[in-house]
């Protein structure tokens, strides 16, 4: 709807900003998104300095303090082997965050490459790649990951590979559609008219202009992969004991639900907060990048 408010011209007098600065400015105004970003930074710091922050080692057992509720010594209680739940969660943040970033990274690079290829060349290449992606997408993601872990054997590395592969078609689709819509712009034709090569067009025009939606999806996807991965660990198909992966902690806590509620409760809250942080930031980015929401 072309109301006149949206066609009002930005005068030259007002401060000039690039799109990136403009996005950042709008993102900064969004309190939720900034909350998410701060949380992510906080979690990253916790993960990096886990050894310094955690009161105990992740596998430090104290048989005199088994299944103790939250107390001054053990803020979030202890588990069935007398290990400090808080310390295990702090050490676990490393695993969960790496899983999130690495799996999303795998999906983004491989899926991005395939999607960009499909979009740029179209025709048969496009058809071949996208039909293959359709096949993978026809198997519910979590179940496909279970199949892959079964084949590879349960371990942290295999978990990341499985969830990463699982993420490929997702990114292939997003990047394909993003590049396709960028390709529709006349500036791509304009670049061709002035004699630009394919590579110039891809790197100077298509990729920079397709990045925004990809960035949003990648942020949101990190949260998703953390949930998927912890779900697999919960089923015993991911990280193996004694690794303090959050899903594995929850799984262990399940057996003691009736006697030690804290064992399952706190790792779940950790997962939720982490995923929430990525979702908040992703949502905020999407809003900041959507010019229609600017009013």
């Amino acid at each position: 709807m072309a109301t006149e408010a949206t066609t009002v011209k930005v005068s030259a007098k007002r401060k000039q900003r690039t799109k990136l600065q403009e996005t950042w400015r709008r993102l900064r105004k969004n309190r939720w998104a900034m909350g998410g970003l701060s949380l992510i930074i906080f979690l990253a710091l916790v993960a990096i300095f886990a050894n310094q922050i955690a009161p105990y080692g992740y596998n430090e057992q104290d048989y005199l303090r088994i299944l103790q509720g939250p107390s001054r010594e053990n803020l979030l209680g202890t588990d069935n082997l007398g290990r400090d739940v808080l310390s295990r969660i702090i050490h676990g943040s490393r695993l969960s965050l790496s899983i999130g970033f690495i799996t999303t990274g795998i999906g983004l690079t491989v899926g991005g490459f395939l999607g960009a290829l499909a979009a740029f060349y179209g025709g048969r290449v496009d058809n071949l790649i996208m039909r293959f992606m359709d096949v993978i997408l026809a198997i519910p993601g979590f179940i496909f990951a279970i199949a892959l872990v079964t084949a590879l054997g349960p371990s942290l590395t295999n978990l990341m590979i499985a969830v990463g592969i699982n993420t490929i078609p997702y990114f292939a689709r997003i990047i394909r559609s993003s590049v396709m819509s960028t390709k529709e712009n006349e500036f791509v034709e304009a670049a061709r008219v002035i004699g630009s090569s394919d590579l110039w067009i891809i790197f100077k025009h298509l990729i920079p202009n397709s990045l925004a939606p990809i960035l949003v999806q990648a942020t949101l996807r990190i949260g998703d992969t953390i949930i998927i991965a912890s779900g697999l660990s919960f089923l015993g198909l991911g990280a193996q004991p004694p690794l303090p992966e959050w899903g594995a902690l929850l799984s262990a806590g399940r057996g003691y639900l009736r006697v030690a509620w804290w064992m399952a409760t706190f790792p779940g809250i950790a997962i939720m907060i982490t995923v929430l942080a990525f979702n908040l930031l992703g949502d905020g980015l999407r809003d900041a990048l959507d010019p229609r929401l600017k009013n």
Partner: protein
Amino acid sequence: MLKYIAKRLISMVPVLVGVTFIVFAIMHFTPGDPATLLLGEEAPPAEVERMRERMGLNDPFIVQYGNFLMGLFRLDLGISLTSGRPVYNEIMNRLPATIRLSAAAILVAIFIGVIAGIIASTRQYTVFDGGAMFIALLGVSMPNFWLGLMMILLFSVFWNNTFGYVLFPSSGFGTLRHLVMPAIVLGTAHAAFITRITRSSMLEVLRQDYIRTARSKGLNERVVIYIHALRNALMPVVTMAGLRFGVLLGGSVVTEQIFAIPGMGRLLVESVRSQNYTLVQGIILTYAIIFSLVNLAVDLLYAAIDPRIKVQYK
């Protein structure tokens, strides 16, 4: 319309064949020998070798895949390596529970999600909107296995300790009371997702020119929203909810595990643990087929909502 259904069904075939190939290949190259598994570790090597021959395990991969594919047409998915019973029968025993659970969850999700989404979008920037959106965000950020454990903790353990009886049983399947917690646990993330997508879709539609036309006719706001806007807004909701159904199916595996529901998901986890490959293979295929059928249903629903779709398939 029939032609459209036929076309869509036919287009499912190559995808499903691709799925069988991928699943078969993954399982084929998985370490471990089905014959040994079937006969047990102590079986004499000669016996195992005879079994391998009988199961066609010595054939080249492509022949084995061909045989597997042919078997599918007779609904023969092989035999379970632990029980020795046909995989098909094993799955059919467990399928109803999974379908019941998923259907209950999706109904809960759509009901809550669409209503909350409409409320949020028509009261943009109010407390309703903010509140609904924050709850929805929590919903999608919450791992459902954790939510499940928390509900058990609350409604089975604490409730029992406080009031002396169990409000919702934490395990088993059969009655509606058994279904309540699992359906909520499985449906929550989906409801949250649908809320978000309904809201953004409604906001998009409410910006459209035809909404302005409707208002300029003097229609009251309720008619504009529930008649003119909602039907258009539902299209992306239906599509996305269909695509996300795969996530719900994945979630059902964990949910069945937590609430000890005798569904396919639990069978899958058991089979993975016991390296029962034929059963794993059959179950994954079944999930893929359910998912594809749901997406077909979604497409048909879409065509029913949007008159423009039918034209494309005339």
